[in-house]
């Protein structure tokens, strides 16, 4: 009999008196029928209550978001990127829902995307916006997979060109009063100046 069987047997002995009012309690109990072993090593002394001696609490826990499925913050936690800004507000909202709710995870994913924009804006503010392509590992991709880089660049250029063409065409052919109505016209906008110059240039 191994340690596993011993634990099962001792627990059975402990409980048999307590459960004696149930006819047949434990007659088919088989400690070997445990698909969780050895992932989970039960010992008779353990219950499910969180009654272990908890380690000391890491300071600064009051600002840490925690799952509402647990009573408090764990005794240690990470401090890599505290929730802040708009994404932080969304994250705080997400933690009002339990882990079993889609709202919890979808709000966190939404916060991640907002956080990405916040991060990029921060990069631009600190003059690191130009790192965008190097952050994507463009150097390695150019070295080992030039075809993909060229294809992506060509598709990107085509899409940008197409959109620019559509915008320009739209703005040139819409009557000025209609453009104004649509809110597309700003007296001081560069676009308006550009259209004006373009029209002037095209006049015979």
């Amino acid at each position, binding site marked *: 009999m191994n340690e596993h069987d011993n634990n099962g047997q001792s627990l059975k002995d402990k409980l048999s008196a307590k459960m004696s009012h149930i006819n047949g309690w434990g007659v088919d109990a088989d400690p070997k029928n445990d698909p969780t072993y050895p992932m989970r090593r039960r010992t008779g002394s353990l219950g499910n209550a*969180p009654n272990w001696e908890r380690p000391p609490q890491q300071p600064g826990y009051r600002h840490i978001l925690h799952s509402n499925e*647990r009573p408090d913050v764990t005794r240690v936690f990470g401090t*890599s990127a505290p929730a802040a800004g708009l994404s932080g507000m969304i994250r705080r909202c997400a933690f009002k829902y339990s882990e079993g709710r889609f709202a919890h995870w979808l709000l966190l*994913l939404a916060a991640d995307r907002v956080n990405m924009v916040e991060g990029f804006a921060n990069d631009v503010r600190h003059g690191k916006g130009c790192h965008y392509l190097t952050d994507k*590992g463009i150097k390695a991709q150019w070295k080992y997979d030039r075809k993909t880089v060229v294809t992506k660049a060509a598709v990107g250029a085509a899409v940008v060109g197409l959109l620019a063409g559509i915008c320009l065409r739209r703005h040139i052919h819409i009557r000025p009063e209609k453009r104004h109505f649509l809110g597309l016209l700003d007296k001081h906008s560069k676009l308006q100046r550009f259209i004006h110059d373009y029209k002037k240039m095209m006049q015979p």
Partner: protein
Amino acid sequence: MLAMNYRGPGRVRASHKPMPEILHPQDAIVRVTRSCICGSDLHLYHGNVPDTRVGTTFGHEFTGVVEEIGSEVRNLKVGDQVLVPFNIACGRCVFCQQGLYGNCHESNPEATAVGGIFGYSHTAGGYDGGQAEYVRVPYADVGPTVIPAGMDLDDAVLLTDVVPTGYQAAEMGGIQVGDTVVVFGAGPVGIMAAKSAWLFGAGRVIVIDQLDYRLEFVQRYAQCEVYNFDSIEDPVLFIKKITDHLGADVCIDAVGAEAAGSAMQTITGRKMLLQAGSATALQWAINSVKKGGVVSIVGVYGPTGNMIPIGNVLNKGITIRANQTSVKRLLPRLIEHVQNGVLNPKELITHRIPLQDVSDAYRIFSDKLDGCIKPLLIT
């Protein structure tokens, strides 16, 4: 100090961050000597794991030298060379006491379903990871293990996740002598799962993947049968045909959320994020295992839900076993295997890239460029 810095999906860089500090009496500060990029880091890199915040440092596979210890640390001393399991475990909670170090209840405030993991988003506790020059290691008396004298650091760093995860995948399969085992995925974990399946007495080991260079590697490294699913119209039917139309005794999902092979799964799971990743490998595993067989899952999925044929699990009487790896529980046995030459994990490392080029390292690994199997970051 220099550290990997996540900037958004598909974008990372090496940048300077403040040095980590002792924040708890059971913490240690470790100077990193080796760190790897794991396949599951790519889920973070692609923005698929909720609560992955800009500015976080990834990395849950690392070795290092203890630089500083908290006032309550007893088992480590400054200068010790340690390998650090990817799980952060208190060693005291009801789960740690049962050997479930991957399910610690005192290391992750943000989610109860998963224990704390180094550098794996705030969903796994918000800890900075080891793809940096220095890292804070909580509960330093529990996880970190002094590297035995003479052990190669490249072997040691793979004992923090890849080797134990592959081994536990085989262990959870409950492999009996002579069993046929199918491993989906020839990434580092799949390779180790195939290798470990033999240690449990498998009679036949089959690996399925899409990349020929990885299949060639695993065929040589783990002496197994390999098949490229791109050249097979229906992988499930194919496995049935090569197993007397009964199916495999054990199927291992060593792929997880970014599996290829099904347009429906890819679009809904990876592109639109309507499910917690693409569950193609798991779907194949459930459908190609024998009735009454075992499906072992070590591939990582997100926390929401996936499209899998759960009806077939019932109808076929399949046992599904899955867990984050309990590295600490397995380490003594695996260190023995490495020291005896039964396992030689360092052969998996194909790329050594300086930490400052981390953005290129992620691109190479993510896009499977230059025959990459396992990239190691040098600090």
